[in-house]
């Protein structure tokens, strides 16, 4: 009987609502329930719960689908229980489930009519026999992070343009009665960036699987993190991924020998190289790169050298590196080691000081006598790829190995 009381209260509320709307309500109906809160698959790709207002919207959408049934959906009739034969109405397909409610439940239960001309408002009658109404349960959708494998740690989620980024989509509790689940990229306009799902703007996905996202328009600077991979049913969003951007980033530093430094200095010049994770160098036009160099403790003639270097320049420009030592310093033995890495700014995603993947080098200088007691010295400058940390930024080994020995 408790159930009956509860039902009675809910119906009253519903009736009052209908009075305000000046419409008549008929029952029975069904209830919608979420199958549970959805969460991101990896901690970063959180989904947003389907809320009550989502239920309401989907109910409305379904009601429109089932106009012929005279069914009206309302939150106040949640858990309304069809009576008469005591059977629990099963879930039904989208196109016919409202009618199923009537038929399977036996005789339809008329909700109290109120506000009729000349009529007297009657108390709501509680059905004698309680039966379960059909429940259409929303699926739970979990999105993995929409984040390229090339994104360094510490950076916000992003995908490069042109290149596919796989995103895991987990669908649980799907009931065909709710209709197709459609994936799309929310807020996809030119300023925020545009991405496609398996080569199209939308994708039907009613079961767990993986989709490939690929950026077609990069996010404009200042608009990072506004894109969301979302799932909707009948136009109503029921889950969202964590936010992401479309941007290309630099990676995989290289070094190749260009020329020796002569005259008042010794050392060499190398050509820097790096690539865009989108595969197109020009995509890096909204990035900036800073080499970071930090010196260790020098010995002998290098004992006075200390400190570190830094400096951002445009990320779509390839430059040379100079590694020079004044001849005046080569009057005695000594050595020093420096570590070099790179960091970058991504003005599209809005991230700064991000370690550039595979940009680590060690640079050593060794001054030795050409022969013991000769009083003549030579400098060996050596730059080679190695895991390195400079000014607090770590990176794995870059590519390249250049070593040159010169007389002072």
């Amino acid at each position, binding site marked *: 009987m408790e159930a009956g009381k509860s039902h009675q209260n809910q119906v009253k509320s519903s009736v009052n609502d209908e009075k305000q709307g000046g419409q008549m309500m008929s029952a029975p109906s069904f209830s919608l329930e979420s199958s549970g809160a959805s969460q991101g698959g990896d901690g970063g790709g959180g989904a947003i719960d389907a809320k009550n207002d989502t239920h309401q919207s989907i109910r409305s959408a379904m009601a429109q689908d089932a106009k012929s049934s005279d069914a009206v959906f309302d939150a106040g009739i949640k858990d309304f229980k069809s009576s008469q034969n005591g059977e629990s109405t099963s879930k039904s397909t989208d196109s016919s489930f409202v009618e199923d409610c009537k038929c399977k439940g036996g005789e339809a239960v008329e909700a109290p009519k109120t506000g009729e001309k000349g009529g007297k408002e009657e108390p709501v009658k509680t059905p004698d026999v309680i039966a379960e109404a059909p429940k259409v349960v929303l699926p739970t959708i979990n999105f993995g992070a929409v984040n390229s494998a090339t994104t360094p740690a510490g950076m916000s989620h992003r995908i490069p343009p042109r290149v596919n980024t796989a995103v895991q989509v987990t669908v649980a509790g799907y009931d065909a009665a709710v209709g197709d689940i459609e994936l799309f990229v929310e807020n996809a306009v030119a300023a925020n960036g545009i991405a496609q799902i398996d080569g199209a703007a939308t994708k039907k996905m009613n079961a767990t699987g993986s989709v490939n996202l690929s950026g077609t328009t990069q996010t404009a600077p200042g608009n990072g993190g506004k894109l969301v991979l979302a799932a909707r049913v009948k136009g109503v969003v029921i889950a969202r991924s964590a936010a992401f951007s479309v941007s290309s980033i630099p990676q*995989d530093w*290289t070094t190749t020998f260009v020329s020796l430094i002569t005259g*008042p200095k010794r050392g060499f*010049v190398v*050509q*820097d*190289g*790096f*690539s*865009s994770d989108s*595969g*197109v*160098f020009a995509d890096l036009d909204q990035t*900036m790169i*800073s*080499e970071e*160099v930090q010196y260790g403790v020098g010995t002998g003639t*290098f004992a*006075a*050298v200390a*400190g*570190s*270097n*830094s*400096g*951002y*320049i*445009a990320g*779509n*420009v*390839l*430059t*040379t*590196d*100079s*590694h*020079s*030592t*004044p001849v*005046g*310093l080569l009057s005695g033995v000594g050595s*020093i080691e*420096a570590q*070099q890495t790179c960091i970058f700014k991504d003005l599209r995603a809005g991230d*700064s*000081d991000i370690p550039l993947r595979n940009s680590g080098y060690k*640079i050593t*200088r060794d001054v030795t006598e050409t022969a013991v007691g000769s009083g003549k010295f030579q400098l060996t400058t050596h730059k080679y790829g190695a895991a390195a940390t400079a*000014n*607090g930024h770590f990176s794995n080994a870059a590519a390249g190995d250049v070593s040159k020995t010169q007389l002072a």
Partner: protein
Amino acid sequence: MWRSSLLSFIVLLIVYAAGCHPAIHLMKEESGKDHTPTQDPNGYAWRGYRERVGDEWHELPNEDTKCLREYSTSNSKGKWSQDRRISILTDHLTAKVGETIKIFHVFEDRSIGQELYIMGPKLVYGVWTDGKCTSAVPEGLAEYPFTLIYDGRTLPSPGWDYNFAFTTVSFNAIGKHEVVWKIGDLESNQLSISIVE
């Protein structure tokens, strides 16, 4: 006869130049990882200014670097010496007694193809205040980039390098005070700073 043969040869050369060289160029662009070296089209670009405090690096806000960012339109710069010059800039030509004043340093090279050692911040020596040198230039540091050794990226001139540690000065006497930067054969403009109560 030989004239027609020579003409044919020249025509063939032109055809080769027009038809083959672009193809070769295209192949180079398509192969490898788009590593075709390019030159910075603007050696005068603003690249931000990072200050190092101990092991920490901080980007100075724009309001603290206004004079640097407006360098190109400044009327107060050093004199050219073999297409190079050094300049000092400040946003505080008037300050109070004891107030700390930041002075920024710029090296500029208007010749083509010289190296600009744009990494830093490089320590600055050779600053003179009221006729006295406050930071003597160590031996071997009189040539740009004014460092013992250099490891890092360079940009081709023409352009500027402002990645020097800023100098701070303060004055305890009211009146005009002069600041100038001298290193090697270069001498900057002179800043005349008014100190008031």
